[in-house]
């Protein structure tokens, strides 16, 4: 029987879609050579329940790598490949063209077809380089739009898109100068359909997606102690994984999804541990008197990167799980923390203090070179997109905690203002 002093409203994810976005994403800096693309409104889409090309254009803009041709400037709006006049699109200097059709079928289903053209192709530019066709229920149109964005993005850049992913984050609400509520929410990658997974009067932190995107681990203080839970995202069912005395924190999933690295202090000092995802089989990984925290698995599953003050100030280290040998990773700056590693193992993204300010930086793990990515300050909680191209993170803007995003090379910057309360601790899901 739960303690009466807990206030915990546990909501199941609803089926109905909420169109109001808590996060409203704007690009503040795109790359110089963003690819000009025309995504022509699909015929029939205005009478569908969701405007597909609006979503596709917004997705492509958000990547910072595309520049959309305004619909109001389009003198031609073909929906059949046979009606495409490539000369027109060359005249308006488009590199790529997307056209399509939406047809309502019986049973509230939609047939969606689209074609992608390479406008400057040498031969046969009039023939599409890709044509796809789908039949989906109305409720899946938004998901389909993101999937189409992924396909277009990958065809044109060679890199998989990250539009069919979700972002978990903590929304904090203040009332009368006190925090009244913490909400662990999950929204689509464009900020739409935010749904609370947990609402609490006590802090929630460190959400972490399982590699298959079906579960979310997090730390909750609802019992006036830090404890680690794992929730099934679809059903909302959750289980308590760790409630040892002292700190229970920083859950991180192994690449194969079978283990969690966690931090326990046992009322002494925080060290790294590994446990099975059902909470059994606890193994201590680091020892000694330093603070060790924020573990992150290497992509090959053989090591943990982590934050430690064993050298005096917080720096990033790496421990080999078999030998327990420790090596230091960061040498620039007096504060480096919260490592997250690209899936090719090449870069560590982290919080880096530079000139007294906390920024997000990327370190080339081979050369040791550090690139500061952000111009924002008091940055925290960097999380990589599943295609490793963007980092979403928490920062301060106009006195409020908001999310922001930056590309891994620092060239694209996005602002993500929030409509309600403050937002922190973002975690980008795998591609779903």
């Amino acid at each position, binding site marked *: 029987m*739960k303690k*009466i*002093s*807990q*206030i*915990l*409203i*546990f909501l199941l994810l609803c089926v109905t879609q909420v169109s109001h976005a808590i996060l409203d994403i704007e690009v503040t800096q795109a790359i110089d050579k963003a690819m000009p693309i025309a995504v022509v409104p699909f015929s029939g889409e205005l009478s569908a329940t969701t405007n597909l090309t609006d979503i596709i254009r917004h997705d492509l803009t958000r990547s910072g790598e595309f520049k959309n041709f305004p619909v109001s400037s389009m003198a031609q709006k073909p929906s059949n490949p046979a009606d495409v006049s490539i000369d027109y699109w060359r005249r308006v200097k488009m590199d790529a063209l997307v056209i399509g059709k939406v047809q309502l079928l019986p049973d509230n289903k939609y047939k969606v077809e689209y074609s992608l053209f390479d406008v400057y192709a040498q031969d046969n530019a009039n023939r599409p380089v890709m044509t796809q066709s789908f039949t989906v229920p109305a409720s899946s149109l938004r998901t389909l739009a993101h999937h189409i964005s992924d396909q277009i993005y990958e065809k044109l850049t060679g890199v998989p898109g990250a539009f069919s992913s979700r972002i978990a984050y903590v929304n904090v609400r*203040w009332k009368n*100068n*006190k*925090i009244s509520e913490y909400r662990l929410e999950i929204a689509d990658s464009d900020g739409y359909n935010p749904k609370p997974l947990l609402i609490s*009067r006590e*802090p929630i*932190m*460190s959400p972490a997606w399982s590699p298959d995107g079906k579960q979310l681990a997090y730390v909750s*203080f609802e019992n*006036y*102690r*830090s404890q680690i839970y794992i929730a099934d995202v679809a059903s909302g069912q959750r289980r308590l994984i760790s409630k040892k*005395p*002292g*700190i229970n*924190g*920083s859950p991180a999933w192994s690449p194969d999804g079978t283990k969690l690295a966690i*931090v326990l*202090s046992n*009322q002494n*000092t*925080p060290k790294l541990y590994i446990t099975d995802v059902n909470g059994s089989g606890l193994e201590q990984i680091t020892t000694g008197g330093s*603070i060790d*925290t*924020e573990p992150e698995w290497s992509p090959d599953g053989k090591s943990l990167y982590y*934050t430690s003050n064993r050298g005096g100030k*917080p720096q990033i280290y790496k421990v080999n799980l078999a030998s327990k040998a420790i090596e230091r990773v960061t040498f620039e700056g007096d*504060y480096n*923390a*919260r490592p997250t590693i690209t899936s090719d193992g090449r870069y560590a993204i982290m*919080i880096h*203090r530079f000139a007294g300010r*906390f920024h997000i930086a990327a370190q080339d793990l081979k050369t040791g070179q550090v690139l500061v990515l952000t111009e924002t300050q*008091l940055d*925290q*909680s960097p999380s990589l997109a599943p295609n490793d191209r963007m980092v979403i993170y928490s920062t*301060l803007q106009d*006195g409020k905690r908001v999310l922001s995003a930056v590309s891994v090379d620092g060239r694209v910057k996005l602002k993500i203002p929030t409509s309600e309360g403050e937002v*922190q*601790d973002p975690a980008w899901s795998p591609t779903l």
Partner: protein
Amino acid sequence: MKVNGLMKWAAVFACTLLLASCANSKHSKMYKDGDEENGSSVSQGLGEGESFWGEDLANASEAQLLDRKVYYFDYDSSAINDNYKRALRAHANYLKSNAGSKMRVEGHTDERGSSEYNIALGERRAQAVARYLESQGAPSSQIVVVSYGREKPAVQGHDEAAWKFNRRAVLVYEAK
């Protein structure tokens, strides 16, 4: 899992009480935005490394010392200010004399730096206070240390004027 209506309201009430007791220190009330009752006395007792309690504690009664539940820290430090020790001793005595009492010592940090590293720093502060209480006779079985890191600031704000009030340990009686 659903919480039924009556339990939910009882829980809201209980949590409001707990939150209110966290903010019980007279001085943490002084610095909240929009709090008009103490607007004129803000400058008393301020300064780096001072206790923030302007009054002379030498003549404070035991009850007044027990009223002191919030203790502040310098940046990157978990050292306990000497001015606090008399009040902490009063709490140690209370715990020693009331075997059924239980105290939660909360550790907090300002917002700078990473969240989980701040959980560790907050724990150091709370542990420093707990160890001091134990050195003054408080039974360790009656004390629990919980770190909230930067997650539960007392004061909204993004400069040292706010940060100094968020670097704190808070004593909460879970049972009296």
